[in-house]
C-alpha cells in the first residue's frame, strides 16, 4: 500500500467494521515500536508491524489488506511476549489472515490455499497426510513450478519413508461433523468471541 495517501478521519472506508474486533485488541497500542523491533520478519515486511497496527487503529482496512505483513507473521509470539501494553498481537495477526482469506484476497491466494488444503485434509482424515495435502495444494495453486520447489524434500522424505501415505497404521477419524458445527456456531454472531491477551 502507499502510506503517503491521505488518511481521512473519521474513517470514511466502508466495510472497515470487520476490523473492529482487531481494533479492540490493539487500541491500547502506544506506537512504541517494540513489536517491529522484535519481529524476526520485519525486514521483509512491506509495512512494519507498528505501521500496520496504526492503520488498523485508523480503520484503513484496504491498506492493511494490500500489505503482506500479517501473512509474513511466523507465529513466534515474540511481539506478544514483549508488548509493553500486553496486547495479543500474534492472535491479531492470525485474525487478519482470517479476514484476508475470508475476502479471498488475490495476493494471499498461495498462503490461503496452503492453509485451506491443509485443513481440508484434516477435515477428511482427522490427521494430516503430507502427500495428499501437498498434491491438493499444488493442484489448487495451479502453479506448474510449485511442486518442484518441494520435490527434492518430498523425495528425501519418501526415501526415508517419512511420508504418511495414508491407509497405514495411523488412524483415520473424519471430522466433518465438528467442522460443520463450528461453522454453524460462527454464523450466529453471539458466538464471535475474543479473549484478551495471555496474562
Amino acid at each position, binding site marked *: 500500500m502507499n502510506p503517503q495517501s491521505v488518511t481521512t478521519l473519521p474513517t470514511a472506508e466502508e466495510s472497515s467494521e470487520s476490523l473492529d474486533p482487531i481494533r479492540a485488541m490493539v487500541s491500547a497500542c502506544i506506537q512504541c515500536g517494540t513489536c517491529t523491533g522484535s519481529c*524476526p*520478519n520485519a*525486514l*521483509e515486511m512491506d509495512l512494519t508491524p507498528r505501521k500496520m497496527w496504526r492503520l488498523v487503529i485508523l480503520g484503513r482496512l484496504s491498506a492493511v489488506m494490500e500489505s503482506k505483513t500479517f*501473512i*509474513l507473521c*511466523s*507465529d*513466534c*509470539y*515474540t511481539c*506478544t*511476549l514483549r508488548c509493553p501494553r500486553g496486547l495479543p498481537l*500474534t*492472535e491479531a495477526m*492470525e*485474525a487478519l*489472515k*482470517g479476514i484476508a*482469506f475470508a475476502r479471498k484476497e488475490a495476493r494471499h491466494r498461495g*498462503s490461503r490455499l*496452503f*492453509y*485451506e488444503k*491443509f*485443513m481440508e485434509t*484434516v477435515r477428511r482424515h*482427522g*490427521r*494430516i*497426510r*503430507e502427500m495428499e495435502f501437498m498434491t491438493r495444494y499444488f493442484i489448487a495453486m495451479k502453479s506448474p513450478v510449485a511442486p518442484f*520447489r*518441494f520435490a527434492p*524434500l518430498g523425495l*528425501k*522424505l519418501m526415501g*526415508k*519413508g*517419512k*511420508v*504418511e501415505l495414508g491407509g497405514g497404521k*495411523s*488412524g483415520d*477419524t473424519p*471430522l466433518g*461433523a*465438528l*467442522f*460443520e*458445527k*463450528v*461453522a454453524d*456456531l*460462527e454464523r450466529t454472531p453471539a*458466538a464471535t*468471541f*475474543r*479473549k484478551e491477551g*495471555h496474562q
Partner: protein
Amino acid sequence: MSYLYYPGCSLTSSAREYDLATRAVMAAAGVNLTEIDDWTCCGASAAAPISHLLSLSLSARNLALAEQTASDGQVLVPCSACYLNLKKAHDALRNDAESRATINDALEAVNLKATGSVRVRHLLDVLAVDLGERHLAPLVTRSLSGLTVAPYYGCQCLRPYPEFDDPERPVSMEPLIEATGAAVHPWEMGARCCGASLVSTQPEVGLERVFAILKAAKGADLIVTVCPMCQMNLDAWQARASRMAGEKLSITVLYLPQLLGLAMGLASHELGLDLNLAVLGDFREKITHL
C-alpha cells in the same frame, strides 16, 4: 512417572524419529507413556486464521479424549506447535467460561466434553523439570564429551506461555546437555524464530531465518531441537540456505531425545538416527569413537 502421550501428525510421518527417540528415552528413564486413543490433528498453524473457534475445538477434542483416559492426567506433547494449540485450548477451557461453553457446543458434534482438567506439558518441560539431570545423569552410559551442542528451543514451547523457562533466553536444555558430557555452544539464537511455515509459503523470507540460525551454530558439532517444524526447517533446507549464504552451513541436527538416547547408550536405530535428514558423516565418526 506416567503421562498421556499426544504425538501429533508430524511424529507419525516427517518426524518419526522424534517419536521413536521420545518413546525410547522415556522408557529407558522408566517413564510410562499412554498414547491418547484416536487423537486427531491440533489444527497446526493453519486452523487459527481460518477459524479461531475451529482451532480451539480441534485441540479441545484431544483434551476431551485425554480427560476420558485420566481426568487429572498430564498430556506430554513433543511437538511445539501441537503443544501451543493444546495449551491455548486448555487456557480457554480453564480461564474463560464463555469460550468453554462455545467449545463444548462444538464438541457436542463429536459427543465429547472438555473441562481442561488435564495438564498440557511439553516434552522439554518434562525432561528438564520432572526428570532433570538428577534423573538423567545416572542413566548416561557413554559420555558425549568432546561434542559441542547448540540447544535450539524455537518459539512455541516458550511463547506465549513461559511455563518452564525464560522465554527470551532459555536455558532448560543446558543441564541436560551437560549431563551427557557434551558442551553447550554459546549463542543467542536458541529462542529465535526458524521461519516456521513461511519456509514453505514464503521461502525467500523463511530461509533468511534458517540460515541466520545455521550461521550462528558454526563451531558446534550439532544442533538439538524440540520441535518437528524447527527440525525440518533446520535440516531439510541446509543446501538452499548454504546457497543463499554462499558458504557451507551444513550441520548435524538432532532431536533432544535423540541426543539423550545416544548418551544413554541406546542404539541408533532405536533412536531413528537413520531417519534424520542431516546427520553428517563426521558426526557419525565422532560418536562412534566416543
